[in-house]
């Protein structure tokens, strides 16, 4: 007898429908699985047989064939255990009380018959919903994320027996969606607050602009000046995530297996700070069946690279494409995977190996050493950075006698206001922030007064800007004007944008 159960797999960040077919026929007793399976899926056979037996179901001594279709797609992961088990039972003639054509089954089996959580449930359930599936059976641990999909009936199960009871109509468990109250998000306690940082007014201003318009930042300064601390405060002023953005981030974390049962929905903007020994694959995502890397885990959030020159050259260069395209494409023999990677790059570096330049009384480096150190960051990468800031080590007076800085919450209010202006501007576009504008949108949304055009022309010649550099200044100026609540970009906004841009003034050595 033949049966078919619907399941789902993940390709990149998106789901793919998989049909799990079982056939039980006369012949030598065998359990065969086909359908371009990776070894972790092939092993499912053993788990299914044992789990069935331990749940009280004896497999008949007959020829059992399992096929996972489409057969041209390589299947990976452990989520097929449960659908295979269900499909075998159905093929044997087990009674069915629910509409199995519109219910997807996902889950891993343990030998004792209990159901274990799997990665990527959110992506799968989303895709199921789009494909017209109305319900899904998922492991209890994954029920929270599955329930995020509006209009999907989620049946949480914790064992094979429960699953069978549900299918046979003896037991109904629809997962009740936990309410994500808006209050819960607001009370998210940020560990770091800008008020804790004394002085460094210019840096704070730079961070505020960066957060408002999603601009990339590079901080250069002596060790201990507060670069890392500032970067860690950044999430506390970042604008709130929309529900769609949260879902996107949660999908990525779901695939990576980083969701816990409690945090089924990521509500905070991610802050990823990989160590500088990170490999290029860990950063971009990789593996035979690629998994998201740090750039994708920082999607809609901050990727903080401390000690930028210490990162491998090839590691830094792979950042260029995602910085421009806001996604990363990984090609493998089997398929091409696209992961979203819309992150804000925040980098910090020392100005020279000893860390004291430009304080020539303390700096022990030769000009060549300084130049070499700074040249480790390639021009094309620097070109993608909108806000360049030099950090001066803080003075004693500022540290102990300065006034307390502005609280993150009040900075965040301004950022939020600027974001709302941008949301209105980009209504109907695919982007949310000024920094994401492409050339076409720039023409549509950014216009300069006569005076500003003259200023830009002057800056273009004097700073030997690239076309990209010019565009980036305009986007930055737009953000500064938004923070100012101004409809048009004024000369002061442009001047400030150019001030932050100014990556050329660093070469005073020799």
């Amino acid at each position, binding site marked *: 007898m033949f049966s078919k159960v619907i399941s789902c797999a993940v390709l990149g960040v998106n789901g793919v429908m998989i049909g799990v077919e079982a056939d039980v026929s006369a012949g030598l007793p065998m359990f065969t699985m086909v359908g371009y399976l990776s070894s972790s899926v092939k092993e499912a056979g053993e788990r299914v047989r044992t789990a069935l037996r331990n749940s009280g179901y004896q497999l008949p001594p007959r020829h059992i064939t399992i096929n996972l279709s489409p057969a041209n797609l390589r299947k990976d992961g452990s989520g097929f255990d449960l659908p295979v088990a269900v499909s075998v039972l159905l093929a044997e003639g087990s009674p069915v009380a629910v509409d199995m054509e519109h219910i997807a089954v996902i889950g891993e089996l343990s030998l004792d018959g209990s159901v274990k959580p799997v990665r990527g449930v959110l992506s799968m359930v989303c895709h199921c919903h789009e494909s017209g599936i109305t319900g899904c059976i998922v492991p209890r641990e994954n029920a929270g994320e599955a329930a995020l999909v509006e209009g999907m009936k989620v049946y949480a199960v914790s064992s094979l027996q429960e699953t069978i009871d549900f299918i046979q109509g003896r037991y109904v468990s629809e997962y009740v969606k936990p309410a994500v109250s808006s209050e819960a998000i607001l009370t998210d306690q940020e560990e770091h607050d800008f008020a804790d940082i004394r*002085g*460094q*007014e*210019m840096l704070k*201003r730079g961070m505020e602009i960066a957060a408002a318009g999603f601009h990339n930042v590079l901080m*250069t300064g002596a060790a201990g000046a507060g670069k890392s601390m500032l970067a860690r405060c950044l999430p506390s002023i970042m604008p709130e995530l929309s529900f769609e953005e949260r879902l996107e981030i949660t999908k990525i974390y779901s695939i990576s297996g980083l969701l816990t049962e409690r945090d089924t929905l990521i509500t905070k903007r991610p802050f990823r700070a990989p160590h500088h020994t990170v490999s290029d694959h860990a950063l971009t995502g990789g593996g035979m069946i690629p998994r998201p890397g740090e750039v994708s885990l920082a999607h809609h959030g901050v990727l903080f690279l401390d000690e930028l020159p210490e990162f491998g050259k090839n590691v830094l260069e792979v950042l260029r494409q995602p910085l421009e395209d806001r996604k990363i494409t990984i090609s493998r023999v089997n398929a091409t995977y696209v992961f979203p990677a819309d992150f804000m790059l925040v980098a910090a570096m020392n100005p020279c190996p000893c860390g004291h330049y*430009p304080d*020539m*009384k303390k700096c022990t480096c*030769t*000009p*060549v050493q300084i*130049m070499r150190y700074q040249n480790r960051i390639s021009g094309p990468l620097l070109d993608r950075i909108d806000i*360049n*800031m*030099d950090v*001066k080590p803080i003075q004693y007076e500022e540290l102990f006698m300065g006034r307390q800085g502005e609280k993150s919450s009040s900075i965040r209010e301004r950022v939020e206001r600027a974001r709302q202006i941008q949301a209105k501007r980009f209504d109907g576009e695919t982007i949310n922030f000024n920094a994401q504008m492409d050339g076409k949108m720039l023409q549509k949304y950014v216009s300069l007064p006569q005076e500003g055009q003259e200023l830009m022309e*002057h800056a273009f010649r004097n700073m030997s800007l690239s076309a990209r550099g010019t565009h980036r200044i305009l986007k930055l100026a737009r953000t*500064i004007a938004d923070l*100012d609540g101004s409809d048009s970009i004024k*000369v*002061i*906004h442009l*001047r*400030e944008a*150019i*001030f932050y841009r*100014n*990556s050329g*003034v*660093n070469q*005073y050595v*020799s």
Partner: protein
Amino acid sequence: MCPDREKDVLNLWFNNIEGLGAARRRYLREIFGDIRNIYDATETQLRQLVQDDKTVQMLLKSQDLSVSEKYLEELTKREIKIVYPGHPYYPDRLMHIYDAPDILYVKGILRREEHIYNRSIGIVGSRNPDVYGREMASMFARKLAEKGCIVVSGMARGIDSAVHRGALEAGGYTVAVLGCGINVTYPPENAELYHEICHHGAVISEHGLNVRPAPGLFPIRNRIISGLSDGILVVEARKKSGSLITADCALEQGRQVYAVPGRAYDLNSEGTNNLIKQGALCVTDPEEILQDLNGDMRSDSDEEAGRKPEEIIGISDEYRENDNDVIKNSLAPAEKMVYSCLSLEPMYIDDIIGASGIGITGAISTLYSLEEKGIIKQPIRGYYIITV
């Protein structure tokens, strides 16, 4: 072979004999007088006249002039000229110093020092200077070049490079004395500067093609820097700096030594401050150098020429009131406020914001307009100084 070319070849030959140093060359010159005589001398003559057997061996080993001719061709191809004592373009100032170079390789424009008032000033200093030193070096070079002075330095990193750049900026004539081969750019990052100097001044070296820079070569080239100058200005020097060797050479050669003062206890200016204590003239304005140099010359020929000393030295009221002053007087109130916060000590943007009290956006915008007017600049990103 035309006589000039023959002389060139002979000089090249004499100065490139393997193992024959300056001392032996001087010795041979004393015996034979002209180089021609040395070359023409037979083995017996040499053995009779020259006491040192080694020297004779060296001379006998290299009697082939075709090598030198090829070398000269190679030099001509690279537009490198040679001058030697007796050559019309050999610098007069070097004629009178002890240990004058027997040959100089020159790339660029050679000028005869026709006018005694065409003053020549050597400016040297630290290879790793502060912003202050760099700015002072550049300012002195610029203003002296504007006055028609020849500005001499060593094209090293730091002060030297700032000096050449300053002189070139003013459209002046500048001379770089290298411590390595004439065609070797050292430090490598000065390649562009090297070519600039070749076009608007001259690069000079005692050493021929492809001589690698070596630690021993730099101190001895310092005597040429001071020799070519009427006075040496030391801008910024640590306690044990190569620039102090140049100052010593200058004193030995009877040149004036000037020093730009630094703050007490400033490590980067310890050398210059010590010079001042020892009697070097402390200068803060290029005019002071010209006044000092021309002060003792005035009696000789000025009166004969029937000119007022002021004309020659160039002190005039217009000079005092320069363009910067005009701009400074026409600043907007906010600009004045920001400008008054700044000095030659680089000031960090945060401190400017704090001191001026006009807010971040305002301060940045004001700094931008001041920078556009050219009266302040950003030597390092985020730090501002006034221009001098």
